[in-house]
């Protein structure tokens, strides 16, 4: 065990300075975790206020201008400050080196820099919020965004800066995965979470610069009157949409791929079963990453782009759906003949399968051009992307957070409250957003401050759902914070998982592993190995202490 018993990355130096200048990927991951959770709270408050306003038609709580700023802030904060960094930068930062048996990421200083860049971006976003928040929607469509008088420039600068934070993380992960895997960990012995983070990092590096350039062009036009997108100055507003979605569609997979990685880990661990079709899952992550670059035009079927372009984009869109579907089947097959237990992380994973399936099927509907014409810019689309982004990514994130929580803090949370929380979130989410599929197909346009009376009952039901959803998260905040101070001490391997992060102490020491871990088994060899009370047991009946599994 460690040289000094009980010394870990959290308590070796408790000074503020040691946190602010830390190069430890675990501490940086934890600092990111605080950042993204704060942003989730902020974005969530905006969401609840939006739903409250929509409880009844007509102005109730706020003016149309305030409402427009609220949904812009909700979208921009949730996308740029929460979902994109949540899994890679917060959880990924913590677990990636541990899962591949490394001491740290390849470029620890760059890692810390990315957190400070994130803070700077968050600062710009908050400045925009206080200085007459942007009212453009998170998509910043021109020429509305170049002509409105709200603080669009500071919000686009925020997204621009946050892009660099995302790129830094991506570069770091790619280098780390290539160069720092423990001896013996070949590419196909990596946990699937690592494959997912790798595919994500590729998109982060290739797509994010396009967003950066686009936003710079937007700022140039707005600040200096250089005509690029505004037709009054000889520009083309649809060009902006092409540029924007060239980033923002792959960005959907920056958000959802790491979530799929988490689900692969959770399903295997809580089914105690070898993952089914490891290679197909790994390849499908890479396939999604590549195809995702070629489908941006499906956001623009009604924009006036040519019919030929619409046809090609529709065709390719269906092909990005296939690898996601394949993953679903593989997870299902992994559960077959497993030994399934229902701790909170597994309940999150099962919720994911349910919600992401709905998100995927409605995605197929939206991919068919003639259906998209009717659904485009209605609540149907709002419901679809909440099923994918929240039902998919956010649910996976919370599954991962509950899964790695004992490793991060060395403490357990209250399992009963955790189960209540996931069930409330599941029910509240479906109440809120399934309703919106019907609202949308009935014709209710999105981004409406006011609406016709016929939509009132469904809007009201959706708002009630948001309260159940909110309650689920309030309970979660309570028991997670409680566990930080009073939680039961966590064992090294509470779930009996075989990936490397569970072979070190909870929480890990500064250098993660006291010896370089050697791999004598694959990450999902549940047919040969099991873990009882932190000890690995082999099929032939030998019981070994985990420190001696090295040879």
């Amino acid at each position, binding site marked *: 065990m460690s040289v000094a018993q009980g010394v870990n990355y959290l308590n070796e130096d408790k000074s503020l300075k040691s946190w602010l200048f830390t190069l430890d990927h675990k501490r940086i991951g934890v600092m990111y975790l605080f950042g993204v959770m704060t942003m989730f709270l902020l974005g969530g408050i905006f969401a609840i206020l939006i739903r409250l306003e929509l409880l009844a038609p007509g102005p109730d709580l706020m003016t*149309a201008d305030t409402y*427009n700023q609220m949904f812009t802030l909700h979208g921009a904060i949730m996308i740029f400050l929460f979902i994109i960094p949540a899994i890679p930068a917060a959880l990924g930062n913590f677990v990636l080196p541990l899962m591949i048996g490394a001491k740290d990421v390849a470029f620890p200083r760059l890692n810390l820099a990315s957190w400070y860049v994130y803070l700077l971006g968050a600062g710009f976003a908050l400045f925009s919020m206080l200085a007459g928040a942007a009212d453009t929607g998170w998509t910043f*469509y021109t*020429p*509305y965004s170049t*002509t409105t008088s709200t603080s669009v420039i500071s919000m686009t600068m925020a997204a621009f800066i946050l892009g660099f934070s995302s790129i830094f993380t991506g570069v770091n992960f790619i280098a780390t995965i290539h160069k720092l895997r423990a001896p013996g960990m070949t590419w196909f012995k990596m946990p699937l979470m690592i494959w997912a983070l790798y595919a994500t990092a590729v998109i982060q590096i290739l797509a994010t610069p396009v967003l950066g350039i686009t936003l710079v062009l937007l700022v140039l036009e707005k600040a200096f009157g250089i005509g690029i997108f505004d*037709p009054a100055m000889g520009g083309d*507003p649809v060009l902006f949409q092409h540029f924007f979605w060239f980033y923002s569609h792959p960005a959907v997979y920056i958000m959802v791929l790491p979530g799929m990685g988490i689900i692969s880990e959770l399903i295997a661990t809580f089914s105690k*079963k*070898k993952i089914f*079709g*490891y*290679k*197909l899952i790994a390849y499908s992550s890479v396939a999604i990453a590549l195809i995702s670059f070629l489908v941006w035009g499906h956001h623009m079927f*009604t924009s*006036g782009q040519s019919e030929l372009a619409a046809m090609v984009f*529709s065709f390719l869109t*269906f092909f990005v759906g*296939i690898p996601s*579907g*394949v993953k*679903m*089947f*593989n997870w*299902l*097959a992994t*559960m*077959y*003949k*497993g*030994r399934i237990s229902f701790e909170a992380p597994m309940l999150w994973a*099962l919720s994911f*399968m*349910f919600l992401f*399936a709905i998100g995927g*099927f409605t995605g*197929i*509907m939206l*991919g*068919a*051009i*003639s*259906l998209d*014409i*009717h659904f485009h810019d209605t609540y149907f689309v709002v419901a679809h992307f909440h099923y994918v982004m929240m039902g998919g990514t956010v649910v996976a994130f919370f599954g991962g957070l509950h899964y790695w929580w004992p490793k991060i803090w060395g403490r357990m949370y209250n399992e009963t409250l955790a189960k209540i929380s996931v069930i409330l979130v599941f029910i509240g989410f479906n109440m809120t957003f399934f309703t919106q599929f*019907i609202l949308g*197909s*009935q*014709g209710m*346009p999105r*981004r*409406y401050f*006011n609406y*016709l009376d*016929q939509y009132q009952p469904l809007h009201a039901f959706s708002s009630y759902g948001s309260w159940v959803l909110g309650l689920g998260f309030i309970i979660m905040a309570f028991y997670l914070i409680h566990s930080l101070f009073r939680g039961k001490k966590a064992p090294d391997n509470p779930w009996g998982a075989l990936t490397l992060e569970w072979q070190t102490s909870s929480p890990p020491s500064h250098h993660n592993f006291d010896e370089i871990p050697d791999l004598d088994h694959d990450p999902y060899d*549940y*047919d*040969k190995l*099991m873990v*009882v009370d932190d000890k690995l047991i082999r099929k032939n009946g030998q019981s070994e202490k985990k420190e001696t599994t090295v040879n």
Partner: protein
Amino acid sequence: MDPNGTLFFPEQGSTIASEVDLLFHFVLYLSIFFFILVTGGSFYFAWRFRKKGEDQFTPNISHNTSLEIFWTVIPTILVFIIFIWGFKTYLKMNVTPANSMEVNVTAQKWFWTFGYKEGATTTNELVVPVNKSVKLLMSSQDVIHSFFVPAFRVKMDVLPNRYTSLWFEATKTGEFDLFCTEYCGKGHSEMIGKVKVLSDAEFASWLASSSGPSDLPPAEYGKELYKSKACFTCHSIDGTPSVGPTFKGVFGRTEELTDGSSITVDENYIRHSILEPQSQVVKGFQPVMPTYQGVLNSQQIDALIAFLKTVK
């Protein structure tokens, strides 16, 4: 919900609507089948293979190539069918029949103007005959808007720098909701109107009466225009300030302008403010009013002036 609609759709008001709904229901039932297969399967396995008693090893099932090929290929074939079907309907939506009646559509913050060849113009109310294909030639005066009639299952963005078009053929008479679906600012959710589908005879008489001069007394006609041309969204007649100055007592009032000069409101100032609204703006208000050049003819402007004289 609409009494004639289904759970998922409003009533079918156009020739294309039933085709769109049919494809939707095909995908819906296919999705329900696979949804039950996957999530039903996961819940069944979760229960069937739940942990019972002491730990045990699980079988080594690493993969099954033929099974994996099977569940990659079958969905691929199915989505290919959906793609072809979706595209074929889309082509129908995009090929305008040759004998269509044309209506010009102008979108601006935050109302719709419809112009007919015969001279009639309407605001926020598109009047069309039943069972006749109608082509809309659309452009925007400012930002991007989008024209959407749920009952017709048609939608098209309206851009400031080019014409876009769409067509539909209404299959029943009645009134249908019309929405702007591209976010356009403060009044986005107020930018809604109606499509009024009339029988051939009704449409012909409506067109004749709307295109010629009105036979109402000017002040009454002006009052009607004040409502139908959406002046009321920004100008009150009861003295409350809104986006623009109130019309109460406006005629003969002396107003200070943004450039510091002052002016007495007379017939010429009103006419000028309708046609070139940005040039002489009253102090304390934003220059946001769109021009009504081409929207109102001179008889209508006269009527509005007559109406404003009566608002005291």
